[in-house]
């Protein structure tokens, strides 16, 4: 009788196993390592700054992150999974006021018949020098070593 109970229990549990598929795209991705760091401007950490790591090769995979309240970020090459591919990168950092509530009050359904009239859309204002938005001008570079790093640091100045 006891063995019968165990058998019926096993029959209930076994179908639960065997779920879950592995995506071939995910399985064939390049290996990533942990890559973390901090962004400061005028000596103090900045929040909600966007950090973009542009690979040196045009066929490489870029990595990106947003800084938290302490200015710290965790790079992601394949979001939402954390981790970046080792290599050398040109770095851009973007910090605008786009999360300002003033952008939330825009008209939502403006069926404007004058299609190409470039109306004055509110444009976010950069809160750091604009050169940091361009990988060619930012002057920021970084190497992510094979073993990963937690010491990436970008101190932005005027």
């Amino acid at each position, binding site marked *: 009788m006891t063995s019968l109970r165990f058998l019926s229990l096993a029959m209930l549990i076994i179908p639960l196993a065997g779920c879950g598929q592995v995506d071939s795209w995910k399985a064939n991705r390049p290996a990533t390592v942990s890559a973390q760091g901090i962004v400061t401007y005028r000596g103090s950490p900045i929040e909600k700054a966007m950090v973009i790591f*542009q690979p040196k090769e045009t066929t490489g995979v870029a990595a990106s992150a947003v800084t938290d309240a302490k200015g710290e970020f965790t790079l992601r090459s394949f979001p939402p999974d954390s981790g970046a591919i080792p290599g050398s990168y040109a770095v851009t950092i973007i910090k605008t006021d786009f999360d300002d509530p003033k952008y939330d009050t825009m008209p939502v359904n403006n069926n404007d018949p004058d299609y190409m009239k470039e109306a004055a859309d509110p444009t976010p204002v950069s809160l750091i020098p604009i050169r940091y938005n361009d990988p060619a001008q930012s002057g920021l570079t970084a190497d992510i070593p094979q073993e990963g790093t937690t010491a990436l640091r970008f101190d932005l100045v005027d």
Partner: protein
Amino acid sequence: MIRRLRTGFTLIELLVVIAIIAVLIALLLPAVQQAREAARRTQCRNNLKQLGLALHNYHDTHGWLPPGSYLTTLPSGDFGGRRQNGFPGMLPFLDQAPLYNEYAARNFRIRPWDNGLTLNQVQIRGLLCPSDSPVTQADAPVGKTNYMFSRGDSIQDNNHWVGNGGRGMRGMFPGLGETALIGKARKLSSIVDGLSNTVAMSERIIAKTGGTRVTDGVTAASIGDTFRNQPILCQLQVGADRNYIGSTIAYSGVRWLDGTPMVSGFTTTVGPNKASCANGNRDYADGVFDPTSQHTGGVNALFGDGSVRFISENIDTGNLSLGSVTTGTSRYGVWGSLGSVDGGEVVGEF
């Protein structure tokens, strides 16, 4: 000795039976729900397949593919145009000949956003993917569409038309100026990357006004135009919970005849089921509008040869820290290569 007769079940026995039944139901319910979603996904694929047949019949009849959008100046002189997509011309091949005749009688010169026009209010069932939750947008009672025309891997100026800037024309359905309507339209023979390697149509979730998540079909607005050179910025508009950080606008699929890329087009850049971003807050803005769906793990896509395939949301998207190209190999990996009609890329298994 009095022998007690057992005439019923004990409480324990009843509880055990109930518990077992509860476990069985708990096991069964997700399976039933999955089977229902599988059925909806199949119907969603079938709708795309029908659109593929309609495209080929259109090509047989006219000798070119319908435009992604085209310019028609209204009799009143204002711009009704650059705004109508390929659907009105495809109507006869979607069993909607009477509706086509109504539009033809107006020379197709209608404003797609005209809520008062009865013709615009028609909802064609075949343009709705049953996996997407039904929407009612009170301020625009216009027919909706889940199915979108490819603008390829172009980001900057993908709202423009042939002869205006020359950018944003990498997909199977470019925008057309009225004078160029016939001469510059794509023919199947001009899709040199191969019909089975070039995506024609795909799906996007119809936008829910006030939505904040990717699955609400909304688009991030007014994040500046830097993302056109670094589309990876667009991915940073959503957090790990796939909630948008900043303000959003709701235009995806809300007007079935509107030809702007945000309303009835899609791009092959950041990958399926990722964030969408507009350059500005207008419905005609250019930007990143990759396919989205409620299916688990990816989206359905119709290819030039009429086949419908499921594209994983983990598909290779190449280097998203570079702007889109106007000629040559796509920078956005396999996904970008599938979007361009003449990029010359070698596409492996996908």
